[in-house]
Every structure is written in C-alpha cells, then in structure tokens.
C-alpha cells in the first residue's frame, strides 16, 4: 500500500531523511517514532505530497507520489485521511460543515452526506456538538472532528502526525482508541508520535527514526531510540 524506497530529503544543507525505505501493507497499524527533528513530520509531508523528496520513490496504492503534479494531488489525498497536531479544521465552519466539506470535495451525493456525516460525528462522540463552530470546541473535541473528517470518506489510509501532541492524557487515549477502532474496521493507520506510553501500550509495528534514518522496524515493537 505504501512504499518508501531510498528516500532522502535535505533542507538548508541538513539531511532530514537519509535513504529511508519501508513498506506498509493494507490494514496495518504502524507507529512512526522518534525524537523531535528525527524526520517524522518530513516523512509525513512527503507521503501526502506536500513536499518532494530529493531522491527515491514514494508509492501509495497506484500513485507514485514523488512524480505527481500539484493539480493531481487533491485526487490522491481523497484516498488519505490526514490528521495533524494542530487539527487543521476550517475555522469559520461548524464541526458538521468541516466533515461535510471533505465529503463534498470528494463528490459524494447529498443523500450520502446527510447520512454519513452525522454518523461519523456520532462515532467520535460529537453527536451533540455538530453545530458548534470550531472555536467553541475543546482541543480534544477538535481532534475528534478532524478524525471524523479524515475517516468519513472511507480512505485507504489514515495518516496521523502527532495527533495527541496538544491533548491531555484522557483525550489522548480517546483519540488513540478511535484510531484503533478505525484500524479494526480495515483502514491502514500510520501514526507519527513521540509519545512513549502510547507506543508501548499499543504493541503494534513500530518504525523508529533517528537523525533521518530508520534505526529499528519491529512488529509489536517498543519505543526505543538507542
């Protein structure tokens, strides 16, 4: 499903990713761990096509991401559900409208939207806050909206970059449990995090990055950076 082959990326003469290669199969739950600056976010940016690698190939399903033109990216991103630490919700829209927007850009029908958007919000526990604007929601609630938006189009993969970075422990586990539930329903999940507790309790595949290189790739791995 996702293949990185010898991918390197340099910013301002500093090599942020060095010859990174790995494969993620469908339905896997993979944690990408590393200290701040290890290259996790760069890897995510390259995967979603926000930036291009200097070297190597990135393949997602039938798409070779590193070769795509800017105008080809939206169609590919509709197969990805992307979650960020800072939520990236549309600020002048309600929780419901944020979810609906993702469905509308994907060309879903009105009937479909009316059925699936409330369901997605119910699933993340925001059934009663659908009409709230983003600024009326707490951090945890905003991230739940982001998850509802990410999963509503039934993407092939959920890519979560530090989704719990701004949340308290209770909300953190709420979000992780949602990601696990989505994975159980058959969606691949790539979770970039530096939260040791989460990774250690998940007991899923862990790819460890240090100084732009993969230092460890283990099934049922632990958060180990040495």
């Amino acid at each position, binding site marked *: 499903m996702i293949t990185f082959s010898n991918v390197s990326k340099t910013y301002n003469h500093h090599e942020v990713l060095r010859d990174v290669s790995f494969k993620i199969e469908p339905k896997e739950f993979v944690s990408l761990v590393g200290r701040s600056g290890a290259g996790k976010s760069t890897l995510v940016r390259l995967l*979603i096509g*926000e930036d291009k690698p200097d070297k190597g190939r990135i393949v997602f399903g039938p798409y070779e991401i590193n070769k795509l033109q*800017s*105008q080809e*990216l*939206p*169609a*590919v*991103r*509709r197969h*990805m559900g*992307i979650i960020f630490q800072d939520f*990236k*919700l*549309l*600020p*002048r829209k309600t929780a419901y409208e944020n979810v609906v*927007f*993702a469905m*509308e*850009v*994907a*060309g879903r*029908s*009105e009937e479909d939207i009316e059925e699936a958007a409330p369901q997605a919000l119910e699933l993340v526990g925001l059934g009663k806050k659908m009409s709230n604007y983003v600024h009326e929601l707490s951090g945890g609630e905003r991230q739940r909206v982001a998850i509802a*938006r990410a999963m509503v*189009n039934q993407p092939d993969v959920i890519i979560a970059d530090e989704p719990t970075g701004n949340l308290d422990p209770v909300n953190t586990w709420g979000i992780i449990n949602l990601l696990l539930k989505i994975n159980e329903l058959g969606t691949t999940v790539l979770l970039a995090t530096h939260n040791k507790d989460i990774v250690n309790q998940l007991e899923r595949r862990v790819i460890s990055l240090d100084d732009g290189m993969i230092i460890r790739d283990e099934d049922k791995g632990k958060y180990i950076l040495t």
Partner: protein
Amino acid sequence: MFTTLARIIKYGFQNFWRNNLVSFATILVLLLAVVVFQGMVIFGEIGKQAINAVQDKIDISVYFVSNAPEDEILKLKEALLTLSEVKSVDYISKDEALELFKERHADDPTISQAIGELEENPLRASLNIKAKNPNQYSLIASFLENDSSKSVIQEVSYSQNQVVIDRLAKILSLGRRTAAVLTLAFAIVAIIISFNTILLAIYSNKEEIGIMRLVGASNAFIRGPYIIVGVIYGIIAVLLAMILSAPFIYAASPYVAVFIPGMSLWGFFMGSFFKLLGYNLLFGVGIGVISSVIVIRKYLEV
C-alpha cells in the same frame, strides 16, 4: 457538475457572509474604485459634449461672387461632400442670406428700413462647411484653392480664422489626450488599490486554502467560491456606487448646464443608466474576479 457548481456557489455566499468584516472593507474599497471609474465615464461624457459644443461652432464659409451661377455652387457643394474630411455642407443662397439677415435684425427699424429701400440684394451666396475634425479645415481650404470653381469664389473665411481654428484644434486634441491619460491613470490606481485589498482579503484565508488542499479539494473547488465572492463584492459595490452617486449627479446637473449649454448631467445619467450600470459591472465585477483569480493562483501552487 451541477452539484459541484451549486456547492461552489453555496461556499461563495458562506465565505462572503461569515467573513463579513473583510467583505465590508473590500466592498468599501471597491466602491471607491467604481465611483472613480463612474466619475471618469461621466466626466468623459461631459468633456465630449464640451468638445463637441466648441467643435460645432467651428466652420469655414465660402462666399461667392454676386453673379456666380447657382449650378456652379451646387457642383462645388457636391464635390465637397465627396471629401472624406467633410462632415456637412450647407448652401445658403443670396435670398436665404437676405432672409436670415432680416430675421436677425427684425428688431432694428433703421436696418429694416434700409433693407426695404435696397433695389438689389447685396448679400452673397455661401457654403458653410463643417469638417469631421477641426484639424482638417486646412485640407478643405487647399481643396477650394485648387478647385475649378475658384473663379466664382470671392472669399474663404478660413484664411481669416486660420489661427483661431488651428489653436482650437490643438486645444481640443490636447483635451482629448489629457482626458485619455487621466482616465487610464485613475483606472490603474483604482485597479491597483482594489487588487491589493482583495489580495489581503484572500491572504487572510491562506491557511484555510492549505487545509482545503489537504482535505483533497480540487483547485476549481477552492478557487470557485473566491470568484463568487469577487462577483458579490463587484455587484454590491456597483449598486452602492450607482445609488450613492445619483443625488450628487442630480445636484450637480444645473451647474454643469451653466458651463455647457444643452448638457443635462442628470438626463445623461438617467438616459444612460443601464449603459453605466453595464460599464460599472464590467469594471467592478471584472476587478473582483480577476484579482481573485490572480491571487488565489499563488496559493494553489502548494
């Protein structure tokens, strides 16, 4: 396709409404630009009318010897009409000249009595020639110099009025060029200000555009609502400009009529209302849409 269009329009109105402070500021700037543009159109018309009024007063007259045969004069009139520079030629016969003279001096008993005592009509037949352009009179005068009818021509008024006509022609030409340059300058200033306002308005949505791209929105889906907002800005600014300028035009109309007799500014405004509305819409909506397209393009390159 229709569903996508309907969604784009919906988001356009939503962006306009929910971004109301930015919308208000942008409309205000666009309103000023449209008022300047409309002012240029109206002042252009006033200038045109003023130039026409002066131009209409310029002509040259050809006076014929008293025994000039009428068919010779009419032949010359026909020949003049074939010239591309000539706008109109009016023939005034000796009798018509006398009638006009009598009419003009009907209130003066001394002149009327003197005319009554005359045995012969002392006035001469003439042709009044108007050129399409004031600087073409010299060409018409040189045509008259070389025409075969020269023998029956006693006098051409051009040689006497040449300096005045040439000066007027230069002033009119300068007036037209100045108006064109001013119009262009004001239009450019209005466009730059409006463009920058829309640039700032969209810049404030830069992050939102990035989010829409991350969610998978196509360029058309992102660009579309901003274009709709540009159209709304343009339409509202134009309607406000028309409504707000109407009382000022009504009040200024009598003063303009003092300077340019026969010119009714209010009459022009009302008579050309839909034409003006069309021009303003083209300008206002044009700026709104083109600025949006150019600015948004920059943020879609991510």
